């Protein structure tokens, strides 16, 4: 019997005990002057929790423990004597056995594995039955305990609410665990990487060619991990080209929509811009690679610009800029809306035209908010992956030519982690070091941006 089925049975038992608890609580007839402290539903819920929680905790723990027991039984079997000593080899054989048993592995590589499959199967069955029995016993014991507590003065509601609060706190803590997981996993792998490559070389080296040598005597494949070309490519595409497209367009869109557009037009344009924001990045990437990049290359070739590549920085940057427009527009929208109406009225009353008011009063007043929005947009653009993976190149060039191919941090992370992976090679670990750099930079940008926006909001409140 598999764990999900046992879990379902436990839940069914819980539902039954809920009904039992509720009926018994309603059937209680306290004496005069006494009344049920909690409503019957809470008594039912209390029963339910006592049935489900201990059994579920056990099942989760058991699903981690049971495989250990199964492995021990398998290794104690007579046929297991020929197995290699504990280590990677033996783990491989054990994995093969479990693969053979559930049918995901067709034929065994190790002859001993074939013999051990029946042992494995009986052991799995054995421990599954044990787990099932213990879980059901726990559920029944929980129900029994909860029934004894069922009295008119019992504070079932307070108990249930305590459990609810624990659940709420647990849900909130998941965010901390995730942050912790991200930081620890990136730091751990990056430290392994920095043992092989010095952080100084990584941060300031000008040469990036992560291929490690297949043979010791191979020429030019020692692997160089100087990430400056990647940083430049990322900044060039995400912070320069994309922003040249996105900031003027986004700002003007926001100005037109908030200051000039009639409500009916706004009702149509705003959802359209939101839709532009909702298009998946892989679609933008395909669009960039299929339509924009060839057009830009043909243009560059016809004008005679040297070094034009079909994977130009310009194609990726322009499409990324288009992707960011709605974001910049909505940030600018918010900051323009936060400028006090009195400033606008004052300017108009002095005889300034609306455009003069916007250019001389509104935009300067909203500037900190706009700058904050642009910083957030930059942090988004440099973390963007699919557009650059599909439309930017892989060549790590340090160039100012927008028609040439450059590569970015995210492109290289994808490149390093796809294909054959060995988890301890410098090549794979480099991806985590790049990820850590990316994380730190985006977080710093975000913190600065939020500070700027907050300060500016306070100035007008």
């Amino acid at each position, binding site marked *: 019997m598999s764990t999900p089925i046992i879990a379902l049975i436990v839940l069914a038992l819980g539902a039954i005990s809920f009904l039992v608890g509720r009926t018994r609580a309603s059937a209680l007839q306290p004496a005069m002057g006494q009344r049920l402290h909690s409503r019957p539903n809470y008594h039912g819920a209390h029963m339910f929790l006592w049935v489900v929680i201990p059994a579920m905790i056990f099942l989760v723990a058991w699903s981690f423990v049971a495989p250990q027991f199964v492995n021990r039984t398998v290794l104690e079997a007579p046929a297991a004597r020929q197995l290699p000593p504990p280590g990677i080899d033996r783990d491989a054989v054990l994995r093969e056995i479990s693969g053979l048993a559930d049918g995901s592995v067709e034929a065994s590589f190790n002859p001993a594995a074939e013999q051990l499959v029946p042992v494995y199967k009986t052991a799995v069955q054995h421990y599954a039955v044990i787990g099932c029995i213990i879980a059901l016993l726990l559920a029944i014991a929980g129900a029994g305990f909860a029934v004894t507590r069922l009295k008119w003065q019992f504070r079932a509601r307070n108990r249930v*609410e305590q459990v609810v609060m624990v659940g709420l706190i647990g849900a909130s803590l998941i965010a901390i665990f995730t942050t912790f997981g*991200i930081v620890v*996993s*990136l730091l751990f792998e990056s430290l392994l990487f920095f043992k092989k490559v010095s952080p100084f070389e990584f941060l300031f080296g000008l040469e990036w060619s992560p291929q490690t040598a297949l043979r010791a005597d191979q020429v030019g494949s020692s692997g160089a991990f100087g990430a400056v070309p990647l940083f430049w490519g990322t900044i060039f595409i995400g912070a320069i080209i994309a922003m040249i497209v996105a900031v003027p367009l986004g700002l003007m869109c926001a100005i037109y929509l908030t200051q000039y557009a009639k409500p009916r037009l706004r009702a149509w344009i705003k959802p359209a811009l939101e839709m532009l924001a909702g298009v998946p990045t892989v679609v933008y990437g*395909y*669009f960039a690679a299929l339509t924009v990049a060839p057009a830009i290359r043909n243009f560059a070739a016809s004008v005679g610009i040297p070094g034009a590549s079909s994977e130009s920085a310009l194609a990726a940057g322009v499409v990324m800029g288009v992707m960011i427009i709605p974001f910049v527009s909505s940030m600018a929208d918010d900051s323009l809306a936060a400028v006090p109406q009195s400033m606008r009225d004052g300017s108009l009353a002095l005889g300034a035209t609306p455009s003069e008011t916007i250019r001389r009063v509104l935009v300067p007043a909203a500037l900190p908010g706009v700058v904050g929005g642009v910083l957030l947009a930059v942090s988004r653009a440099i973390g963007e992956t699919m557009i650059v993976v599909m439309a930017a190149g892989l060549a790590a060039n340090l160039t100012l030519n927008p028609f040439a191919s450059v590569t970015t941090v995210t492109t290289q992370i*994808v490149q390093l982690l796809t294909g054959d992976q060995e988890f301890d090679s410098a090549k794979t670990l480099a991806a985590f070091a790049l990820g850590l750099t990316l994380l730190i930079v985006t977080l710093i940008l975000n913190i600065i941006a939020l500070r700027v926006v907050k300060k500016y909001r306070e100035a007008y409140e």
Partner: protein
Amino acid sequence: MSDIALEGGPNMPAGSKERTAAAAVWTSETMRRRVASRYAAERRFRGIGLFAVLLSGGFLAFLLITMAYKGLGGFTQTEIRLPVDFASISAGVTPEALSGAKGDEAMATLDLETLVNDAAKAQFGEEGQSLLSEGAWLSLRSALQADPSLINQKTELWVPASEDIDRAAKGDSDPAIQRQLAALKAQDRVKTGFSTIFLSSSDSTDPTVVGIWGAFKGTLLTMLITAILAFPVGMLAAVYLEEYAPRNRWTDLIEVSINNLAAVPSIIFGLLGLAVFLNFFNMPRSAPIVGGLTLALMTMPVIVIAGRNAIKAVPPSIRDAALAMGASRVQVVFHHVLPLAMPGILTGAIIGMARALGETAPLIMIGMRAFISSPPSGFTEPATVLPVQIFLWSDEVSQGFVEKTSAAIVVLLLFLMTMNATAIYFRNRFERRW
């Protein structure tokens, strides 16, 4: 301004001379020109604004039209009517054997590929084989699965044409292929029409028989996991932070983590999934459960932030009224605040899910880019999802994949637009302004 100056005149005789002089300056030729140029600047500025809006809208329209135009061809497929004689290869396999429990094994004994090739040669000459798709035998197989009695018969079936024929039928003009197509047309053995192959089959190396069903099913499984995990956790965290959390260092830490997580690039979540779920917990590679977990961690902060805003929008008077009636603090939230905030939370959840649905990079990191030729049957089976499938097809050299990729994009966009439209509907229909 000149009006004010004139009105002010009689009341203040001392300055009246200067004021009329000033009025003259205001109506002078230079001033009129200056005002005209200011109004022109106004119109220009306004024009630039309109231009920016139209350009942005134009990008969207261009993108959608390009994809739709290229993608429409992907839903159609040229097919060729081929006479096949199943009886010639049946070798004792009976209809009962095919429909029985061991039908798949019986099917495996039939050499359908040779049958297709021979039939093509017999009908269209030595070159006949090149007219048909390499996956043409798959149509024979599904025809047999649908109707096992065909095994003893001679029949005519529509099978997918080769990529060249398909492209010729859709307007590509290679003269040799066009001649072949004309010959087929003369025999009335070819048609191009809406084909269910694209919606019902999975990935393949041959663009004439690829489909999105496998990727679509993978997407559904992954999204199911994401929704089950991210929605309750996000909603409960939002409730805790907005309603119960005491103002202390721990709460600040939780808030800072949630705000930071919302800003972390998605590829970092992929690295997290790779390092934690795959390497630490040894979960299966490419499986929807790992993809769902990774996307759930990514979506959760979005739902928390939307949820907090929705809960904040419920006025305190509701809480005070419930408390005054003797409700406990948990009852206040779960009986009154949460139902009122639910439309806002749902809107946020749908928008977060739509974002997760289009997400590609983290799933590539955890290995959901493998070549999967059959739809996944469970949460731990290797699978791929629609955006990753689009990414994989975009890398294919074969020209036939261009229209298939665009068609997959059309499906993905339709799906996303439905989700976003639902979110907007929810927002407009149920959200209350207090």
